[in-house]
């Protein structure tokens, strides 16, 4: 994946984060779009880019909504590396597996930020709250849907549809 594409992906993720975040219906779709972008980069299997994309996504999140600069960058860089390992070394496929991996990554992100917050600010560690579980589920589901959409044979489907109409 080229650097330009990664930049575009991160810009789109930030835009989606704010488009949903400023809506009243934000609670219905609490997707971590920046984590989705990190996972998309990590799926290409390039460790360096996955780590850097994760760090950039985390810095964006920290700059806009976290009280300490670097907590999400730390978490998302580590998660980018982890997801790159999963995509390269562990052979598993299917939308469900991809979604489950990202849901687990979302919870891991919360855990890392929680531990850093506890160590640096003595904040209580809150990991498996309903909000966090809902966001993890929504984030995993979103990537699973994107993965399914990417793998779906659109061309064959379209040709079959046309043939059916002609008959």
């Amino acid at each position, binding site marked *: 994946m080229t650097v330009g594409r990664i930049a575009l992906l991160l810009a789109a993720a930030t*835009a989606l*984060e*704010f*488009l*949903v*975040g*400023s*809506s*009243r*219906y*934000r*609670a219905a779709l*609490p997707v971590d779009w920046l984590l989705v972008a990190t996972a998309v980069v990590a799926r290409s*299997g*390039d*460790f*360096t880019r996955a*780590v*850097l994309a994760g*760090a950039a996504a*985390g810095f964006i*999140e920290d*700059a*806009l*909504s*976290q*009280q*300490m*600069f*670097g*907590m*999400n*960058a*730390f978490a998302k*860089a*580590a998660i980018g*590396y982890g997801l*790159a390992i999963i995509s*390269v*070394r562990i052979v598993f496929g299917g939308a469900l597996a991809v979604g489950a991996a990202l849901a687990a990554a979302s919870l891991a*992100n*919360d*855990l890392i*930020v*929680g531990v*850093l*917050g506890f160590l*640096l*600010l*003595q*904040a*209580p*560690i*809150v*990991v498996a*709250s*309903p*909000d*966090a579980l809902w*966001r993890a589920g929504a984030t995993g589901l979103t990537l699973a849907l994107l993965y399914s959409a990417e793998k779906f044979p659109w061309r064959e489907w379209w040709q079959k549809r046309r043939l059916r109409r002609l008959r």
Partner: protein
Amino acid sequence: MRTTSSRTEVIGGRSRRGGAVLAAVLAVCVLLLSAQAPARNRASGTVLQSWILSAAAPLLSALSWISRGVTSAADSVSEVFSARKDNVALRTTLASREEELFRLRAELAQRQREETLAASAPSLPSVTVMAPVLLLERRSGFQSVLIGAGSTRGVVAGSPIAVPEGLVGRVVTVGRTVSRAQLLLDGLAAAGARIVRTGELGVVRGDGSGAMRLNNIPRTSTVKAGDAIESAGIDGIYPRGVPIGQVDAVSRGSSLFLEVRVKPSAPFSRLADVLVLAPSPAAIETPGGPRGERP
């Protein structure tokens, strides 16, 4: 076989290089975090964050404008469908409101006298500005909100924010046109609170998972579920008399104090606009400005 082993070597090489990059990135993050940690009690977040908020403000406002446009269009469509049902409901409500009006008029004169008295209290909240919510972030106990108002509209660090239903939190980082506020639900947030019925004082703390706890209420207290909690104005940050929530459950733990769970009155997940209140005089007078993220 050779192909497989060479592929494994390539992956191993990439993984090692990626590992080195990861170590470097994590080291940078740790350094950044360490540099900020001693400054966490500073007045208004980091200067860097303030600059970033100011720089990103036009983009955030544009995205918020688009999002609100889409939301209101969706609302308009759904309103057309529900208009008839709403009309019947409104007629019923109107009838009951008219009955209520007679009773309220009788109480009005007395209320006016009370308000005149209360208006002289210095800690009563005064609204500085109304601001749209741009982003609500809930991440592992940290709960914050970005609002579309900054120093150009008179927002200063330490300004409490509220909605008509109750207290929401306080501003911690101020940009030119965008500010970041810590919600009362944040794991590090706290506010001086009073049980309206009994008058007892305590400290409301966010538990980071969407609820709050009222601490320091002695076991002899008669507090019960349903009691209203309001800000006490004793913390030098929040004004007195703003609703915070209702007692959800009371349990007797092993400590000297009751464990009181509080259900917030402000609809935190559905915040659309917030009122930025004037900061408490105590917060402004504190050397170095208001206290940081830990009241």
